[in-house]
């Protein structure tokens, strides 16, 4: 669910580094260059890119479309084609029968079977529409943090890769150690102690 849902899940990141000026133009450029494009009749099983927060299906990034107050708000879209296993079994069985009868022999090698399967998958990928999944992204540039509204591991990894590719900046996931190390203002002595910390046993 997106950020306006009544209940949200937030993964948090720190953004390492700064963009060159003009900031808004460069962010718009990064979003546009990696915007999602529609999958037509293709054999690809997945496509990943940015889209607009308020219009997920027609990405168009001009200089102000992603600015909301002090935040940059946009969305990550992952379009995936997923073929049900039963459909693959059905089409593979038909294709193998056809192959055997065309050649007039019962036996087919493992290599032939593998090639038939690839052809069947390609044909199915061409015919099937991709299912889009949209995850909202909020970037607070001045405070160097980013919220990603999903806890899915795969979606978080797609975000980290695409963000780096689009803006040349690294996202550092915030979790107990990185929050302690980067976000709560520890001094050098405390950060040194943090690295040496070992678990406490509360067991009686």
């Amino acid at each position, binding site marked *: 669910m997106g950020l306006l849902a009544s209940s949200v899940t*937030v993964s948090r990141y720190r953004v390492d580094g700064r963009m060159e000026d003009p900031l808004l133009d460069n962010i718009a450029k990064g979003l546009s260059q990696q915007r999602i494009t529609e999958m037509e009749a293709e054999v690809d099983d997945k496509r990943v890119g940015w889209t607009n*927060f308020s219009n997920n299906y027609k990405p168009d990034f001009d200089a102000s479309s992603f600015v909301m107050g002090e*935040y940059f708000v946009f969305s990550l879209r992952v379009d995936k084609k997923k073929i049900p296993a039963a459909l693959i079994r059905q089409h593979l069985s038909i294709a193998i029968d056809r192959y055997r009868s065309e050649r007039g022999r019962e036996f087919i090698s493992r290599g032939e079977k593998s090639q038939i399967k690839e052809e069947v998958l390609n044909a199915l990928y061409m015919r099937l529409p991709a299912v889009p999944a949209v995850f909202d992204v909020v970037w607070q540039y001045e405070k160097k943090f980013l919220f990603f509204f999903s806890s899915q591991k795969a979606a978080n990894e797609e975000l980290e890769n695409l963000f780096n590719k689009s803006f040349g900046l690294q996202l550092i996931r915030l979790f107990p*150690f*990185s929050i302690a190390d980067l976000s709560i203002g520890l001094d050098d002595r405390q950060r040194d102690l943090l690295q040496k*910390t070992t678990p406490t046993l509360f*067991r009686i």
Partner: protein
Amino acid sequence: MTQQDISLLYHRYQFLGHEFLTWLWYRMDTEKDSRTGGAAADGEDAPLGLTLGNRMVLENRSREGVVESITIRGDDAGLEEGLLALRKGAYVTEMNLQVQIGEQQWRLTLKGESLMVGGLKTPQTAKVEQQQDISGAVIEKLFLCEIALQRIDELFGLFTRIRLSPLWDQTETPSMRNWIEKTATQ
């Protein structure tokens, strides 16, 4: 920091998040009896502004790596089972919380290992009826999300400073063990 470093640090120090949630439960429970329950650091002994929600998960990992998990659910859940698990060496790994700031209330679930916030319900925001309402609604929602997350970070900061100070071994850990012993046997 490379992605490999991040992954290594994530796993190596996930106990910090579990200790934090266990400490939060102790602080919330002892705060009912005393406003200054437990040790204070940096002059911080203000009310936490937190109450335990309707779900908590505890895990006990044996030396052989076998994980025993206990989930306590429901608004009036008995917490005795959780306290007994703490006695046996378990830590809180996930906790549903209510954050109260002034008249406003947030609900959220905090995962110890990642400090990821799930099921975050902010105070009611204005309804979006037209396209031009979206920007205002987003800004309001993010402002409210930030307040809750900031509160969690403040508490984690307080915990970490105590955790890294001599107070942790001298006062806080013995107090927590006393609390576990006393409460679990009541």
